[in-house]
C-alpha cells in the first residue's frame, strides 16, 4: 500500500492566548478586525490572522511574527474599557503539520478523540499520547498540532515510528 502523507514542523508563527469575559467579546472583535468565534472548537480567519475558541472564555490567536506588535497595540488601546488578558505565547509551542490521505489515521495512533467527527476548519485542545496539544483540522486531509516545545521530540518520535509502520504496511 502506498503511503503519501507527510509530517513536518512549521516555521515559527505568532501566537497569543486571549481571555476575556463574554460582555467584552464585541470590543475584542473590533480590536482584532473580525468576529471572535462564539462556540468552542470554532475558528475564524481573516488574512494571516486566525482565532480558535478553546474554552468558554479562552481563544488562541495566530498571526505572522511581524504582526505581533500591531496586535498588542490594538488590544492595549481598548484595555481600559474592556478588561482582558492577552499573552504572547509564540515561542511556547511548535507547530507540526500532518497532511495526506492517511493523516487522520496517523493521528489516531496516539489521540483518543474520534477524529472523524472533527470537521475541517475546527480545532480542539486534546491529548496526544500523554502530551496536551492543540489539534486543528485545517482541511479534510490536513491537520496541525501545536505542541509545547519540550514535548516536540517525544511527539515527533511517535509520529516518525507511526509513519515507518504505515510505510511497511503494518
Amino acid at each position, binding site marked *: 500500500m502506498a503511503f503519501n502523507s507527510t509530517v513536518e514542523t512549521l516555521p515559527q508563527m505568532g501566537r497569543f492566548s486571549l481571555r476575556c469575559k463574554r460582555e467584552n467579546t464585541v470590543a475584542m472583535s473590533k480590536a482584532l478586525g473580525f468576529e471572535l468565534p462564539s462556540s468552542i472548537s470554532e475558528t475564524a480567519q481573516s488574512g494571516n490572522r486566525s482565532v480558535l475558541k478553546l474554552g468558554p472564555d479562552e481563544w488562541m490567536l495566530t498571526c505572522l511574527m511581524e504582526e505581533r506588535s500591531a496586535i498588542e497595540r490594538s488590544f492595549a488601546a481598548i484595555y481600559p474599557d474592556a478588561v482582558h488578558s492577552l499573552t504572547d505565547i509564540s515561542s511556547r509551542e511548535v507547530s507540526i503539520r500532518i497532511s495526506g490521505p492517511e493523516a487522520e489515521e496517523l493521528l489516531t495512533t496516539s489521540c483518543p478523540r474520534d477524529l472523524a467527527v472533527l470537521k475541517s476548519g475546527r480545532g480542539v485542545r*486534546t491529548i496526544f499520547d500523554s502530551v496536551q496539544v492543540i489539534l486543528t483540522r485545517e482541511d479534510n486531509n490536513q491537520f496541525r498540532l501545536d505542541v509545547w516545545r519540550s514535548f516536540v521530540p517525544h511527539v515527533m518520535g511517535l509520529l516518525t515510528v507511526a509513519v515507518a509502520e504505515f510505510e511497511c504496511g503494518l
Partner: protein
Amino acid sequence: MLLIHCPYCKEKLPELEFEYAGQAHIARPDNPAEQTDAEWRDYLFIRSNVRGDHAEQWRHSHGCGRYFNALRNTVSDKFIATYEIGQACPTSHAEGEENNEQLES
C-alpha cells in the same frame, strides 16, 4: 475507556482528557476562623463514600479547562448526568432503576 459529556464543549469525549476533582456541592464555610476544630475537620476531610450515585466535580483539563459537576454511579461507573457549575444536582433516579442494577446482586 469512559466517554464523558462536557457540558461546556457539549460533546462526549474520552476520559483521558478529564480529571477527577472530588465530591461536589460541598458547603464552604464563609468564615473559617469561626469554625470549631471539629467542624473544620469535617469540612476538610470528611466526605461521603457512596456506593451508588455520587455527585462529584470533574475538570476538562485537556480541553476547555473548565470544572463541572457530574452524577456518577460508583458501582457501574456510569455517568448519569453532567452539568455546569452552579446548577442544581439532578435527581439521581432520572434514568430509571437501571442505574442500580449492580447494587441489587
